[in-house]
């Protein structure tokens, strides 16, 4: 080294030195973050290369947007993207308002046995695993021995082959999700409702406001910020249709409506005889980028119209 080390320590170094113990706490989590969250982002460049097992990332030939254009031009592109967005929006439309509604409703109850029971039981399905949940769905909708078809037949209808009809897949996917998560998703709204100043309700009571009016003019305005925040987050997740549930509910008969981006990436990249890593990585990257764009857009819109935003 030609130059002597500068004696003046940089601001950064002094800052780190001052709280070095905190950095010790942060060391392992930070290493984990860089390795398992950020290295894969670096590795995602195989989407622009022809990567095969045995080659290194940098040794693989650069092919630019080839994999992306192959995906955009493939017959499955529209179907897979359409299913993904369709399922998500359907779920958002139905699954998002229900917990808000239930929370407002629950909040009107006096704390007691009934309220506690509703909360306890309605949270429970959230903790059931996806595999068991799909098992439950299949059991209930079974063609010959499932309770729903047994009931239909008992009252004189024909049995319905629920899992065999592609057109029914979105309904099954969305409404089972509503059953499983609506209860638990009320938790955050209940917490927000509990922070509303009781003086507001007292004043409204004195003015003769009834319960419905108090919900409309006190409770709903009180939970709008958290509701918007959650809505933005949900929009950011629109493309991330849960892999597990869609994958487990899939069968050859409903593939037309049940194939979504995440299941398609899995099949292209890790399943079957010849894994096509680069192509699958390109589809995955497309998904990530589009998801980020959606989140930023939703955030900007919310910022503009309601002053609520994540960042």
């Amino acid at each position, binding site marked *: 080294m030609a130059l002597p080390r500068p004696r003046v320590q940089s601001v950064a170094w002094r800052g780190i030195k001052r709280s070095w113990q905190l950095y010790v*706490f942060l060391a392992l989590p930070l290493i984990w*973050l860089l390795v*398992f969250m950020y290295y894969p982002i670096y590795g995602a460049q195989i989407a622009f290369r022809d990567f095969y097992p045995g080659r290194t990332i940098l040794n693989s030939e650069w092919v630019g947007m080839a994999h992306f254009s192959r995906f955009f031009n493939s017959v499955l592109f529209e179907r897979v993207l359409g299913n993904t967005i369709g399922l998500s929006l359907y779920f958002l439309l139905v699954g998002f308002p229900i917990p808000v509604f239930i929370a407002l409703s629950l909040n009107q109850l006096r704390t007691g046995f009934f309220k506690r029971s509703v909360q306890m*039981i309605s949270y429970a399905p959230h*903790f059931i695993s996806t*595999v068991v949940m799909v098992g439950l769905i299949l*059991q209930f909708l079974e063609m010959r021995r499932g309770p729903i078809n047994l009931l239909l037949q008992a009252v004189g209808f024909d049995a319905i082959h629920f899992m065999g009809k592609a057109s029914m897949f979105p309904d099954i996917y969305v409404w089972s999700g509503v059953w499983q998560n609506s209860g638990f998703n009320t*938790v955050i709204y209940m917490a927000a409702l509990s922070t509303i100043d009781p003086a507001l309700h007292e004043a409204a009571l004195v003015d003769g406001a009834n319960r419905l009016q108090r919900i409309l003019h006190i409770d709903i305005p009180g939970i709008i910020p958290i509701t918007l925040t959650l809505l933005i987050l949900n929009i950011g997740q629109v493309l991330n249709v849960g892999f597990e549930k869609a994958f487990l509910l899939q069968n050859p008969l409903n593939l037309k409506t049940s194939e979504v981006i995440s299941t398609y990436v899995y099949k292209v990249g890790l399943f079957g005889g010849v894994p096509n890593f680069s192509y699958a990585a390109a589809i995955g990257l497309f998904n990530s980028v589009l998801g980020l764009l959606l989140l930023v857009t939703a955030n900007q819109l919310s910022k503009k119209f309601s002053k609520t935003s994540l960042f």
Partner: protein
Amino acid sequence: MAPTVQPLPASAIRIRESRVDQVFNLVNYTILSIFFVIILYPLIYVVSASLSDGAAVISGRVVLWPVGFSLAAYEKIFRYGSIWTAYANTVFYAVVGTSVNVVLTLFAAYALSRQDLYGRKVLTGLFVFAIFFNGGLIPTYLLVKDLGMLNTRAAMIIPQAISIWNLIIAIAYFRSAIPEELLEAARLDGCDDVQYFFRILLPLSPPIIAVLTLFYVISHWNQYFTALIYLSDKDLFPLQIILRDILVASNFEAGMMEDLKNMAERETMRELLKYALIVVASVPVLIIYPFVQKYFVRGIMLGAVKG
């Protein structure tokens, strides 16, 4: 800690209800009762079916309570070896994995909750950004493969060492539930950052530790996808993989049905086994969660709402 004053819910204010409110209450109770029944009924049905006589289940005679009480399905599960290997594996992943999760999450949350941490904003941003943007399935898989973790127990634990959502909950808890003055007072007494964490912060953290433990235990217990992509050795499989074979693909271990002679009996037993297996696989998580439920609103979500 001084007990916090709970705001009085509106419903606790007792004033003679007007006619409009009486109608409202009636409608409200009706809606919630229907919601309650819709959630509860399938749960009861599964338990009842698993305890019933197979013939009663497949002919639709089980409506609410068990018909022709029988433990046959549970006896079969008890003798089903691969389920118990998988059960033990899942317990291992849940115990070891959750320990790693909780320790790392608390460490990171402590450092990131300190206002005086140099570079706090950038570091927090680095964590949060990873929620919204990631490299995707394939690059992550290739990384795990290159690290030599494919088909090892580590693959079920290390790549999921921290859930960033849970980290945010923990940061919010530290910032909203622990008063800032505590740090200043401790410092005056000569407490350094390490001592402060172990002697002062941790003893005040049972609510957040309980919630983190619950969330992590459940995510390990329910983990399916990670095992699907990283594991191929049957001895390492967690419960969910075995469950998938039986519940979704209807693949039973050879020999499982040997004692049943005719096809109809086997068919019936298959259905019964599925119900019983759903119960066996879900009971552990459903038992622990009510104990932690009381912390949901008090500890974490309040911090999340305020922060």
